[in-house]
């Protein structure tokens, strides 16, 4: 009997069909994964904004100053009131942890990957009664799926 082997062309076509069938399945997983990713990044952004907000309320009134857009990077950023140092479980400055590759590698890698940044828009408001406040717009930006995303939170700092 003259039996034909499977030719290379047939293998290629079969692989092509397989790939075409796999695309919707993988896309389904992909979209679920992206939803998780979006939720995770937004959660981080909200957390950052609230951290800044809490620190603003504890800072001296005069030292609440503008951080213009595009803002400061959270990872590898300079020493500031908000993220560097990010925590200190010790009793001296030597124990302070900063968001750097050496000290907090996982957090650093995550924040660098999505380019998390923060900016502050500060406006001084003087009321007729003589008291004053600062209206501070806290802007958190990051990159996700080729898009520039933003989360904003406004907080009011009174001059007490």
């Amino acid at each position, binding site marked *: 009997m003259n039996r034909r082997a499977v030719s*290379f*062309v047939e293998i*290629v*076509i079969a*692989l*092509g069909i397989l*790939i075409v069938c*796999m*695309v919707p399945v*993988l*896309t389904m*997983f*992909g979209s*679920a*994964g*992206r939803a*998780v*990713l*979006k939720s995770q*990044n*937004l959660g981080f*952004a909200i957390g950052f904004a609230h951290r800044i907000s809490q620190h603003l309320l504890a800072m001296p009134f*005069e*030292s609440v*100053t*503008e951080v*213009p*857009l*595009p803002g*400061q*990077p959270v*990872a590898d*950023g*300079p*020493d*500031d*009131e908000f993220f560097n140092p990010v925590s200190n479980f010790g009793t*001296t*400055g030597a124990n302070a942890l900063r968001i750097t590759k050496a000290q907090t590698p996982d957090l650093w*890698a995550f924040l*660098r*990957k999505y*380019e998390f940044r923060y900016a502050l*828009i500060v*406006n001084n*408001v003087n*009321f*007729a*009664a003589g008291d004053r*406040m600062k*209206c501070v*717009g806290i*802007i958190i*930006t990051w990159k996700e799926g080729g*898009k*520039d*995303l*933003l989360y*904003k939170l406004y907080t*009011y700092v009174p001059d007490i």
Partner: protein
Amino acid sequence: MSTGSTRSPGTAGSSPTQDLRKLLAAWADEAGDPLQRPTWADLQLLLLPLKGAPSAFWDTLLPSLPPSQALLATMTLARFDATVRAAFLKRACSVAPLMPPSQAAVLLKLFPHDLVLAGFGPALLAPPPLGPLAAYLLARLGITISPGDLPAVLTATPPASAPLENLARLVPPDQLAAVIEDLTASLASASGASRPALEMFLNILRSERRSELAEPAWARPAPDQEQPQARPPASGAPPTPRPGSPLAQAQARLSGMAVETPAPAATKVSGILPQGLLDLASGIDRHVLIGIGAIVISIPLVLLSTTGVSPDAPVATPMPRKVDKAPKYWTDAVSKRRITHEFLAADNDFQMGEMFLVRQEYGEALSLFRDALSRDPEHVGAQFRIGCCLFLSGDRQGAAKAMTTALEMQQDLPEAHLYLARIAAANDEWEPCLAHYQKEFELTGEILVALEYAGVLRKLGRFPEAIALLSGLPPRFAGHLEVVNLLAQLRDDAKEQSP
């Protein structure tokens, strides 16, 4: 920022300010990197807690110091702490014109170029003496600026040869030809005032031989000017334009945040495969080649569709160092709306307006909401708040118009119908009033709206409708005290009304 230290180096019998002056003097006399000098350890204990002190403190202290010490202190604080950097760089700009330019240049050599650029870059836009001085200092330190900022800087620079000579040194040498080309093109459209400066600058750029750096003229300040002043002179600091304005953007770029050179034009790809590869493929069937091509194209597509699936995906793209340029717009992660710089400025005004509204300062609030709306005509919140302010300040007609416009912008805007109902009630227009209450209740289902609505129905003697409204509330409101009371009163009223 707290240093976490409670120790003080002050000796008994001397005030902290005197200690600070002594340490500053000793520190200024030492050599080397300011942060490595022996006195810095003691000095920072006094200096750093003061960095958040009110502006008035620094405005008094700095002019009373020798200018070299003041410049050293302000630049060091700016270098040490990013949160106060902007304020101290401005102070450094105020101090620099008080000393001979060459001395300022020697001091600034101790600091990183990006810090000096962040401080004196925006100062290029300041009027003389600061603007030309900044150009001299940057040129002396070999710092260059982005060619895109030259037009703005040229506008601020006096049309004299010395300042323009210094300015020419700020052009990156590798982009000189492109700058000349751009400026020549803009010369044609230049107006009468800026044309001579532009022509002179172009001549300087074209001349192959550069003269020596021209040191700006400096006159020692009169003794009375060296005394402490309540505020630094207005010309001694870079201008502070409104955020988002072209001048502010130029300042931001000049401060080194967006100094990006345009990428060289991509080399044209011929699209022709190497001859060797073609020779290899010549022996393979055409259909096989198409199949391989399909697979090669499909694999990246499949990979692309699955990238970003795992939150723990390995880090593949490190953050570039020079991304300090704000994008044209962002996407709001919550509302998905496009956020532009104009929208942020409008939202800023809106948020300030909210503060005045809460404080019942309706005039100020109204003005801010109108500003917000003029910046972003699609800001529904601002349009709605304009209506609120007008209503609360007694302008019912204006309020009704504003609320109607807000509803045209967003049909399901909560509270707009409520205000329209209240306005109609105040005008004794009961049918429109009830219609607005009905729409508001359908939109929000709020119990307070239902109570207000039922109250109006009761006032009009339409008890069965009011009873039906309150009885139809969701079960969770069944025990609400006000609902129970009003229902009881309505039933009594209905009994009295019936024969």
